[in-house]
């Protein structure tokens, strides 16, 4: 069939050529319109259920809300992990589903189960699913400020909530905008406990009268005459004055209005978070995208809308848009990898020109690159694959190999045409080209097949690593297969037009100086090799063994560190700190950070914004730092950041990372760190104690940084203990008393006030004077007795300053505490085994256990998988070779290239990072395929010489075969190596972080496998190849006889 394709292409050459040109144009257009992102879709389907429960303590939130929701969701199909955080007044449950499941189906299942859970939740509590977003969903920050102070924090927040947010939410692709900072406007009725008592009013009176403070109702329709009228009762309050004048009860027969017992005012919604930019107060808005939205185009659309918006903003307001943007990293990373692709192509062109010394053959060979790339773009478009650093990386790795098939074909056609021209009766050019292409067709197809097969097991990689590397493999395979198709169709056609139609002068195939030079020295070397083949084999065997042994001493990392051009700083102060202090200290840190020249801007969020799906306390500051491009290394800048923070806020715990890396860690283990020691058990206090014990045991381990016991600690609480006996005596129930106290102290919404298009809540609660001290709370009247005496809180219980947990986290239906850490300057794997040793003697009570997670978790799993998949790849290579050569001996000889490649790979890693990452392992599996190619071409040619050109087995044949294959072998290897050099010398550049170790392994491996192959393959074929070769020839001759 493949011969028919070559024949058809040569017969219909004009049609094929035209089709190729059309494909080039269409493919180029498609390539420019493919969706662009920094990474492939790494989203694990996660459904987040958020429940606001004002006034609930963490223990109550956990038991009454999180637990029923967890039980309801448990057992859902494809559910991998359930996590929850229960904080003061907030429960957040994350349901993590298996990769590849449909998020919308998952959401539907969660919604169904939530209906069941609702029955078990306290009255008035209703859980909601947060909008679906992606791991890299936070695409940009914007902020509203008023540098002149013309606009108050409340006016800024109102502008953000009611003008900016709705405009941006209407953009297709924006999923959520979380606003933090400023003052959220609220209408408030702040009751004085003292005045309430003097007027003889009780909590019950307030609740009853003010719950109907203002309502509009409908009386249905009536017909008057021939017209229909809608009846409306207009009781809604429309101003502060209306609220102040509202009736609240009766005292000594006189009606009492709200203003007599309360202050009515516009105030700020109770704050649990705040924001700032560059150390100045601001309303910070985080824009999140939908999972399917394309970041770059969405960012551009948002920017356009923001430009329009800023023109219509009131005087004195500044809309800051030059803060963190994910698109900066994407553009930078994609630009860098595209540059690598371009530079790789230039390198390939130089190598081709150097070897071929003929612009026509160089042109034909080079055509394979754009043709293969546009074919890949068309297939990408067809399958909905986008452009990202990994798919571009796959192409960058493949770029040197895209010309391989064409090189082999062109070289052979060129040689055969030259030989043909020397003949007395030359054959027709088309026939020569066809025969020459057919001659090398088998080795091209089989070597490409091996490269493809080697990659196939990589698609079995699970988890994040699978999502990350599969697109690289897809891009690589598609482009390599495209190049094979090009070499079977377009290359022979171009050969006909560009080198076949040349005047028929009998010109000797004159080689360039460089090739002649190489061949001269290669011949001398091979001659020596064939004299001492055993010495060569033993020497190479020893070096291979040393390389394998050296691997065991190398460090291991999961993924290389990214260079995102920005930093995410988590600052955890001691829980119990007030929002005011935490906010002030946070702003001081920001100002200190801005003194570092590399820091471009800072955006800070402290605590939790309304609608935020994180249950962070006010002790948590998160600063996103945008960095200038700088000569200084990322590590140096980060170290400066740490120093600055410690100068300003020495006692704060710092977790320093980068936005995307942090989120990847979070997705892997639910924790934002490389190492997560998760302690599970029923009692939060015991978990905290065990956390402390483990901290003590590992705190001095070298290479451990950012060590932190999850701050699930005791925070100050003002508690009211209700004495059941006393409450009974007062003819009350403990529940009623608790509810009354909640209404007075925490407050509740008694209605809404509408201002134009804006809806604001009306809050009723005690004023600050009445609720600020334990003593004033003790004197709150809960009931008026018929005697006229008031029943006060202090008579029914104790008000005291105690402590309680700030938050309770759960995972897999169990309470969980995490001791987290990052590694610095040491191998992650080694560090984890040291930790394991240190904690193995921890005495765990019954019902408690420890799990180690984080990046380490993914690394262990992926290394295990890669070892098995690598073995499977080797087996596949062997089977393909065996099928091709019909000889296990010849297949094994070719596979000897693999240990030869290992020598170079290990050497290259030793010279660079000295650490094996998942990317290195994947690169090595890829290398197995590429390296085998050299052996295939060499041994195939030996057999060809014996079968078709009457050569006999011997040193002469081996030397001739090796020298004839020297040029294509060196060219294919050199193009592959030089195409990767832009990645090789770009360690740590954005976008190339994962591709750099791939380049290191492939370049190192190809160097040794190519050079040693020229020594080892002839030697081993000379020693062990004769019998296998004779057998292969006999088989070939038998099959030829059968053809006739």
């Amino acid at each position, binding site marked *: 069939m493949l011969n028919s394709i070559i024949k058809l292409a040569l017969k219909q050459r004009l049609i094929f050529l035209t089709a190729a040109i059309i494909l080039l144009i269409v493919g180029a257009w498609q390539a420019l319109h493919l969706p662009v992102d920094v990474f492939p879709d790494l989203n694990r389907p996660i459904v987040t259920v958020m429940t606001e429960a004002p006034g609930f303590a963490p223990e109550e939130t956990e038991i009454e809300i999180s637990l029923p929701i967890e039980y309801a969701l448990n057992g859902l199909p494809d559910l991998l992990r359930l996590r929850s955080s229960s904080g003061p007044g907030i429960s957040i449950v994350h349901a993590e589903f298996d990769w590849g499941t449909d998020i919308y189906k998952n959401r539907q299942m969660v919604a169904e189960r939530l209906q069941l859970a609702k029955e078990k939740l306290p009255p008035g509590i209703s859980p909601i699913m947060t909008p679906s977003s992606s791991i890299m969903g936070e695409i940009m920050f914007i902020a509203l400020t008023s540098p002149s102070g013309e606009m108050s924090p409340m006016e800024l927040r109102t502008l953000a909530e009611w003008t900016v947010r709705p405009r941006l939410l209407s953009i297709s692709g924006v999923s959520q905008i979380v606003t933090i900072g400023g003052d959220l406007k609220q209408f408030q009725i702040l009751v004085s406990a003292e005045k309430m008592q003097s007027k003889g009013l009780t909590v019950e009176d307030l609740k009853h009268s003010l719950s109907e403070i203002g309502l509009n109702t409908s009386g249905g329709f009536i017909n008057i005459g021939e017209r229909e009228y809608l009846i409306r009762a207009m009781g809604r309050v429309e101003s502060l004055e209306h609220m102040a004048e509202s009736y609240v009860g009766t005292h000594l027969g006189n009606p009492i209005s709200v203003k007599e017992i309360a202050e009515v005012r516009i105030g700020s919604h109770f704050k649990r978070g705040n924001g700032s930019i560059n150390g100045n107060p601001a309303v910070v808005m985080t824009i999140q995208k939908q999972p399917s939205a394309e970041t770059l185009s969405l960012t551009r659309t948002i920017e356009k809308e923001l430009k329009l918006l800023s023109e219509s903003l009131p005087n004195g307001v500044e809309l800051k848009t030059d803060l963190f943007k994910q698109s900066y990293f994407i553009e930078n990373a994609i630009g860098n990898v595209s540059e690598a692709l371009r530079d790789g192509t230039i390198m390939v062109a130089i190598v081709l020109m150097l070897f071929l010394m003929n612009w026509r053959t160089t042109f034909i060979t080079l055509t394979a690159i754009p043709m293969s790339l546009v074919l890949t773009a068309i297939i990408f478009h067809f399958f909905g694959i986008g452009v990202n650093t990994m798919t571009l990386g796959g192409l960058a790795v493949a770029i040197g190999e895209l010309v391989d098939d064409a090189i082999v074909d062109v070289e052979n056609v060129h040689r055969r045409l030259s030989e043909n021209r020397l003949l007395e009766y030359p054959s027709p050019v088309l026939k020569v080209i066809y025969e020459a292409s057919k001659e090398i067709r088998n080795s091209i197809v089989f070597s490409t097949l091996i490269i493809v097969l080697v990659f196939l097991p990589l698609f079995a990689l699970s988890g994040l690593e699978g999502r990350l590397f599969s697109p690289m493999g897809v891009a690589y395979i598609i482009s390599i297969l495209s190049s094979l198709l090009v070499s079977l169709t377009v290359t022979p056609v171009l050969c006909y037009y560009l080198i076949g139609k040349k005047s028929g002068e009998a010109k000797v195939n004159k080689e360039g100086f460089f090739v002649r030079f190489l061949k001269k020295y290669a011949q001398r070397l091979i001659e020596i090799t064939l004299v001492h083949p055993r010495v060569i084999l033993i020497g190479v065997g020893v070096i291979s063994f040393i390389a394998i042994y050296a691997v065991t001493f190398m460090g291991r990392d999961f993924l290389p560190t990214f260079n995102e051009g920005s930093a995410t700083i988590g600052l955890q102060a*001691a*829980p*119990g700190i007030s929002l005011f202090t935490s906010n002030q200290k946070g702003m001081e840190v920001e100002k200190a950070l801005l003194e570092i020249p590399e820091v471009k801007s800072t955006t800070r969020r402290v605590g939790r914004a309304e609608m935020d799906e994180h249950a962070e306390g006010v002790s948590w500051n998160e600063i996103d730092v945008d960095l200038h491009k700088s000569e200084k290394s990322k590590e140096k800048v980060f170290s400066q950041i740490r120093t600055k923070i410690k100068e300003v806020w020495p006692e704060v715990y710092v977790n320093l990372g980068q936005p995307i890396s942090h989120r990847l860690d979070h997705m892997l283990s639910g924790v934002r760190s490389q190492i997560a020691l998760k302690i599970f058990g*029923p*009692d*939060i*206090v*015991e*978990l*905290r*104690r065990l*956390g*402390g*014990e483990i*901290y*003590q045991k590992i705190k001095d381990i070298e290479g451990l940084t950012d060590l932190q*016991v999850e701050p*699930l*600690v*005791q*925070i*100050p609480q003002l*508690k009211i*203990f209700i*004495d059941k006996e006393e409450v009974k005596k007062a003819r009350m129930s403990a529940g009623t008393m608790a509810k009354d106290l909640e209404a007075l102290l925490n407050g509740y919404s008694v209605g809404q006030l509408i201002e134009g298009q804006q809806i604001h809540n009306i809050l009723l609660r005690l004023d600050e004077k009445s609720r600020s001290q334990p003593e004033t709370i003790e004197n709150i009247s809960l009931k008026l007795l018929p005697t006229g005496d008031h029943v006060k809180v*202090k008579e029914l219980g*104790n008000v*005291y*300053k*105690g*402590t309680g947990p700030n938050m309770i986290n759960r995972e897999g239906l169990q309470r969980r505490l995490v001791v987290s850490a990052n590694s610095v300057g040491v191998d992650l794997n080694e560090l984890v085994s040291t930790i394991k040793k240190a904690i193995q003697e921890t005495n765990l009570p019954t019902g408690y256990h420890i799990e180690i997670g984080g990046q380490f978790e993914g690394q262990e799993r992926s290394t295990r998988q890669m070892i098995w998949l690598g073995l499977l790849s080797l087996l596949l290579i062997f089977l393909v070779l065996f099928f091709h050569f019909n000889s296990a001996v010849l297949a094994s000889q070719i596979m000897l290239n693999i240990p030869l490649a290992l020598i170079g790979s290990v050497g290259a890693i030793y010279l660079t990072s000295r650490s094996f990452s998942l990317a290195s392992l994947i690169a090595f599996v890829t290398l197995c395929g590429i390296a085998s190619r050299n052996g295939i071409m060499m041994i195939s040619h030996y057999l060809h010489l014996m079968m078709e050109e009457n050569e006999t087995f011997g040193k002469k044949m081996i030397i001739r075969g090796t020298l004839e294959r020297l040029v294509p072998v060196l060219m294919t290897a050199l193009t592959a190596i030089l195409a990767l050099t832009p990645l090789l010398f770009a360690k740590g550049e954005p976008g190339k972080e994962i591709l750099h170790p791939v380049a290191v392994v492939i370049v190192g491996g190809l160097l040794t496998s190519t050079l040693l192959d020229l020594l080892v393959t002839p030697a081993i074929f000379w020693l062990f190849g004769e019998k296998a070769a004779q057998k292969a020839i006999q088989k070939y001759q038998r099959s030829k006889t059968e053809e006739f």
Partner: protein
Amino acid sequence: MKTFFSIILLALSFSLFAHEGGHGDVEDGGKFGGVLSPIVAKSEAGKGNKAKFLYKAELVRSAAGVLSFYIFDNEMKLMDLKDFSPEIAAKLEVKKKGKFSYVGDFKLQKNGNHYKGQLPKIEYKPFNIDFFLSHGKQDLFVGFSNLD
């Protein structure tokens, strides 16, 4: 009889130190997630915040009422207990109708790097615990208040 009188005497002696000092507000969380309080010389227990803080104690109470008692130096480094008394005497008081009253005592025993013991069942909240221990020849006191 001798033992009985000794217990009565010891119990009475506790009231000398009750809530006159050494308690103060509950401090920030400790290294093991519990609450911290300063350890002072027993003789200075009545001086309140003016007493010299010798060490720090962290009290951790599990849901089952198991108490773990850790001792730190002033730099919050966990201390070796070899020079401390093998057990700690503890006195318990609860708040009822605004006043604290004595309800009983219990003991904590040395357990590796900390002391351990069982808290008696308590109906009312909050409650205070006073601990009495010694370091070498020095008698020490530490009080935890408003526990629940």
